């Protein structure tokens, strides 16, 4: 035992040195973590300790321009789990799985997460019955709370424009999507320091950050005008058995969209029931097709603005026009014969428009097409807008120039035509169409923001614009747009009929018919466009879409209280048309005198007496031949 050897002691001493060094490094490491990294770790840990109970912001409502609610929120029950309070997660998951029809394991995993509060899978926005069943179970740690869901009081109404939201109330399509940031608001929360099991930690205080509700959005849309559009499209789909149909109404002076509708449509609250092509395609901005004759407005406006034609100059139409050896036909085989340029417009005479195009030349015509906004998105505040397709200028020969002049070989969207025609009739200003008009605070209703009309550019002079209005009024009074005529409202407009492009050529039997109309022609208040794709029972714009636009305009003008005008272009009488006659002044006349003289106007007599004391409509108004005039009788002496 005495051999206590030096080596052993030296080596133990070496071990001591190594041990001391290691201990020192522990202290150094401790100092580094606590003193150098301390603040950072504290910040990180702070995020962990502060547990948030979310307070979901209410999504903003969507209202029309007059404050009628189009989209609002309703409460629906949702199931939440507070894992720390759940006593028996296995049986809890099992019972919830039965009621919610959800996978038991999935629920079990969620409700056993290391978190303060979790959504129970399959428990979002459930029916009242299911909610009651769950509440009856009284499971500890499982709570039924109110969630909010979008509600559409009008059902399938402007659906493509409004769009819809997903399960998290996030905007998925339409305005809900494009303005999601404004509508959704900012969620708030109560944050309190808690342990990992979700219990409150003593000695720490709560902080409450209130939610900021989304803003209410007021649209340019007028639900009455929207209703007229929806009504006419429903009628059209039934009457004409069309593939699809679309309609837009706009204030041509501001670019405000007053209504926009598509068929087929859907109810946003059950969008899952329809194929996605239906809810994803907002036809007025998405559909591109050959405009046909409505495009002639552009050619006309350009030709008038450049002074290459005047409305009263003469033109001879033999039924075709030769362009670079090709024969471009007029839609009327035998031709319109001798006519004025105004009549060219009235008759929608193709050779006349080809001539306008030729006089402009391709550079000028295409520059106007470009300035009217074709080939570019209008920039309307909706998703899914298309560009349309124009000929490339270097590929435009005489034939392409000719066909473009009357609206063939180009592809445009309805909203582009709206913007262009609005510019042609409003004094020459191309405007950016828009739908979101005003933003208001959800609580105070004070105005937060407002969209002002945006003028893109001046395309033609106000004088040219006036001529275009006159020509288009003439189209309705005397030409192809006659079915859109409304007595006293000075409707202007243009038909369009285009063969559908199919497989690189044209379909022989399928057409897209359209009509664009406005009123009153002296000071346009509303511009309406309707297009019907492949109507089976009638094929011409004049018989399909002109009456639809007429009905919309008539309802809208009366609703908007637009006064009737004088000095309209009188309607040219054709066989079968009903004549308009001026109501004579009957006041003070004896009933026996009247009965014999106005046989064309049947009288609806009310009251007692022998003299007429009151009449309706008043003297000077125009009524359709055969309309009744209501008269009230009384004693002349008593007046």
């Amino acid at each position: 035992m005495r051999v206590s050897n030096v080596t052993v002691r030296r080596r133990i001493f070496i071990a001591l040195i190594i041990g001391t060094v290691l201990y020192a490094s522990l202290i150094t490491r401790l100092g580094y973590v606590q003193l150098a990294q301390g603040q950072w770790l504290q910040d990180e840990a702070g995020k962990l300790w502060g547990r948030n109970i979310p307070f979901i912001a209410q999504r903003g409502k969507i209202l029309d321009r007059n404050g009628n609610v189009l989209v609002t929120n309703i409460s629906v029950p949702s199931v939440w789990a507070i894992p720390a309070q759940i006593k028996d997660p296995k049986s809890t998951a099992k019972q919830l799985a039965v009621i919610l029809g959800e996978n038991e394991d999935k629920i079990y995993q969620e409700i056993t997460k290391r978190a303060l509060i979790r959504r129970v899978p399959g428990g979002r926005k459930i029916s009242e019955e299911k909610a009651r069943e769950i509440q009856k179970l009284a499971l500890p740690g499982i709570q039924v709370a109110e969630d909010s869901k979008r509600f559409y009081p009008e059902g399938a109404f402007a659906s493509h424009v409004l769009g819809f939201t997903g399960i998290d109330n996030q905007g998925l399509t339409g305005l809900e999507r494009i303005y999601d940031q404004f509508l959704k608001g900012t969620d708030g929360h109560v944050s309190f320091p808690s342990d990992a099991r979700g219990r409150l930690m003593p000695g720490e205080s709560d902080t409450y950050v209130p939610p900021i509700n989304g803003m209410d959005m007021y649209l340019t849309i007028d639900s009455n005008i929207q209703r007229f559009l929806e009504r006419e499209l429903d009628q059209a789909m039934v009457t004409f058995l069309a593939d699809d149909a679309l309609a837009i109404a706009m204030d041509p002076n501001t670019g405000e969209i007053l209504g926009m509708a598509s068929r087929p449509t859907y109810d946003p609250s059950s969008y899952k029931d329809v194929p996605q092509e239906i809810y994803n395609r907002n036809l007025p901005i998405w559909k591109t097709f050959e405009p046909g004759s409505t495009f002639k407005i552009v050619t006309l406006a350009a030709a008038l603005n450049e002074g290459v034609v005047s409305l009263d100059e003469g033109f001879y139409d033999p039924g075709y026009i030769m362009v670079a050896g090709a024969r471009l036909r007029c839609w009327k085989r035998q031709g319109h014969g001798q006519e004025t340029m105004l009549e060219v417009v009235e008759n929608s005479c193709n050779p006349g428009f080809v001539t306008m195009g030729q006089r402009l030349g391709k550079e000028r015509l295409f520059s106007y097409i470009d300035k009217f906004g074709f080939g570019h998105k209008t920039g309307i505040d909706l998703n899914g807008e298309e560009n349309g397709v124009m000929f490339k200028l270097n590929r435009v020969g005489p034939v392409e120039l000719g066909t473009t002049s009357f609206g063939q070989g180009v592809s445009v969207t309805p909203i582009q035509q709206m913007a262009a025609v609005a510019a042609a009739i409003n004094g020459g200003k191309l405007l950016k169409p828009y739908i979101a008009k005003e933003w208001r605070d959800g609580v105070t209703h004070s105005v937060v923001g407002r969209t002002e009309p945006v003028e893109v550019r001046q395309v033609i002079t106000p004088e040219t614009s006036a001529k275009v209005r006159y020509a288009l009024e003439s189209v309705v009074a005397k030409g192809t747009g006659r079915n859109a005529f409304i007595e006293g409202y000075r409707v202007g407009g243009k038909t369009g009929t285009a063969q559908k492009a199919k497989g690189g050529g044209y379909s022989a039997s399928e057409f897209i018919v359209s009509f664009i109309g406005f009123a009153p022609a002296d000071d346009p208040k509303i511009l309406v466009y309707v297009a019907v794709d492949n109507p089976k029972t009638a094929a011409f714009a004049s018989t399909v879409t002109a009456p639809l636009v007429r009905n919309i305009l008539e309802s809208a003008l009366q609703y908007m209280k637009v006064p009737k005008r004088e000095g309209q272009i009188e309607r040219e009488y054709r066989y079968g048309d009903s004549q308009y006659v001026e109501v004579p002044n009957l006041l003070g006349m004896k009933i026996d005198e009247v009965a014999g003289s106005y046989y064309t106007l049947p009288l609806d007599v009310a009251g007692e007496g022998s003299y007429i004391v009151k009449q309706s409509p008043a003297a000077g108004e125009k009524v359709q031949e055969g309309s009744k005039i209501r008269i009230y009788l009384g004693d002349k002496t008593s007046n």
Partner: protein
Amino acid sequence: MTKVRTAPDFVILFATLCLLGIGIVMVYSASAVFAENILHDPYYFVKRQIIFALLGITAMYIMMNIDYWVWKKWAKVGYMASIGLLVVVLLVGIEVNGSKSWLGIGSFGIQPGEFAKFGVVAFLARWLSDRQKEIVLFRKGLMPALAIPVVCFGLIMLQPDLGTGTVLMGAAILMIFAAGARISHYLFFAFLGLVGFAGLVISAPYRMDRITAFIDPWSDPRGAGYQIIQSLYAIGPGGLFGLGLGQSRQKFAYLPEPYNDFIFSIIAEELGFIGGTFVLLLFLLLLWRGMRVAITAPDLFGNLLALGIIGTIAVQVIINVGVVTGMFPVTGITLPFLSYGGSSLTLVLTGMGVLLNISRFSR
């Protein structure tokens, strides 16, 4: 053989009791919330800690008065018993946290691995002191000496319990080194050991997770990196002075079993860098005085036994504190004297009793 018994090393005694006292206070602070919530008795853990501490102090007192060379006779029995217990635990052990390391006797559990540490230290001290001259020989000396801890290590790794195994091997290697093994042999084994360790890590996916979690704990904060991050969230905000005794936030169920392996995190959180350093300095004091005992022991068995005991404690401290401060990958291992530990606390105090007895014969 003349050995003069004098007074034990009071510095060691003082440091031990100091650490024990801090341990009891901190076990209470760290466990009260958990114990109240789960067991509805905030004193549940501290009561048991005090009982085991008292048992341990009694054992320490007894050991202090039993002359240490008695253990040379008992070492073989202790070693065989260790192997026996390690086999038994594999057969009938209770699995806790994925490792079969507990033998349950009524409501009372012991970990054969803890017991084996001392069995190996005692038997190795005897083996080396008897065959010191042969240790320089690779096959005749070093290999048999290494076989002693490796058998137990192998059995412990079958549980598996890498922490205890590492401490056991660490202490054994230290002893064999001190006994005079050749450095060149050591370098060879260091290489082998590294390969073996890598093999063990790769063979068990959870160990690999711990390694990657160690390299970048934030890569998987909810999974493998969870413990390291939670531990750092405790230590970091402690700063220089700490949040104050009882003010830990991480003990609110963020740190798993904060009164156990991660008690040092709570100490650092509540008592700050100053408190943590104070605890480490007490351990350093213990190391110095313990090593001094090892150097001044009257015989080679005493040298190596003391070294084995103090080495076991030092390796455990270094690994535990290294783990909770994010220097090493997570390895389940308690902090001697401080962690809530039941039988292991009693055992480590028993070991200290033996060390104190050796100190009484210092020259």
